[in-house]
């Protein structure tokens, strides 16, 4: 259409919204006991966690600090700490 009609957008345009600004707690991935189970990747509601080879991290642009990854990590390799900005 020659004139835009404000009714659809392309995929994944939400990434301009840096929800990392919301958090008060931030997950610290210790990379100490990690066994690559990837539960942290699976359970993040914001699809923030990625990595490989026992080194995983949260994307701090988007991490809201909900704490689910730390709570669910079976080897206690993630700790929630008060973020100092």
């Amino acid at each position: 259409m020659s004139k835009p009609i404000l009714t659809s957008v392309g995929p994944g345009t939400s990434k301009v919204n840096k929800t990392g600004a919301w958090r008060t707690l931030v997950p610290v991935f210790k990379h100490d006991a990690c066994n690559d189970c990837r539960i942290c990747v699976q359970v993040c509601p914001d699809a923030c966690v990625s990595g490989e080879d026992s080194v995983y991290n949260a994307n701090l642009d988007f991490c809201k600090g909900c704490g689910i990854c730390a709570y669910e990590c079976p080897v206690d390799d993630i700790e929630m700490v008060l973020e100092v900005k």
Partner: protein
Amino acid sequence: MTELTKKRKEKPPVVESLLTSGHRACAGCGEALGAKLVMDAAGPNIMVATSTGCLEVFSTPYPESAWRVPWIHSLFENSSAVACGIEAALRARGLKDKVKVIAQGGDGGTADIGIGCLSGMLERNQEVLYVCYDNEAYMNTGVQRSGLTPFDTHTTTSPSGKYSFGNQRPKKPLLEIVAAHQIPYAATATVGYPNDLQMKVKKALAESGATFIHLHVPCPLGWAYKSEATIEIARLAVQTGLFPIIEIKWGKVTRVRKITKERRPVEDYLKPQGRYRHLFVSEDGKKEIEKIQAIANANIEKYGLVD
């Protein structure tokens, strides 16, 4: 390093989720987690119709969209019917086998205002997987009571007060209503057990005909608990017997998740949630908890959840 921490066999790289970051769900949102798990289990060859509600509102404020699959939102009560139109169109184009159709709605959009269209979809057995994200109230509009709000739950339209312990009706038996339509596959699932959920999504999408997943998704805001505990709370709902995990095929229960070894009293589930705190301040409250325990016991008996 211990045995446990030795590197596992090579895993494929982590790929971007089909419900990506930047959406406006509350921190720790069970529904966002549930939708992400559903999308990733389904894969990119899908079309999704979603009802008005938290999921739609937090994921698509123009011009931002967190969805990376073809996705449409129409109204509150018609995602099932819109999905039926998508399915019919794909059929007309000969694409039915290549592209799967998913309809999504909350407990309100599915069991209350949307139940008419849902029943039509099930009765016609159109090949759509309907996922009901049950956070047990109309959350997006401010935690009002729905037909799936459990007994004695405080919501803003069924508040606890001097003369009330909250919602006085049990959850509408949604899965039974759905299963009574004799569809190929209907199941409950929960974000408490993510692998089970994803397995069920794949199973449902492999069926030809209407399928349904009733997905329990805790809400940190509406249920008033600490956001880190979303999955724990979801597990407790199962372990108490309050949210049975079952599969129903063609109207008959074929599988249940037994809680024999992990059974918990309902207090363990109710105590951490602010929406039940009115039950813990008096002797009368204790009696109400006993009633809730009776509901759990009835579920356990009905589905044989404990050996």
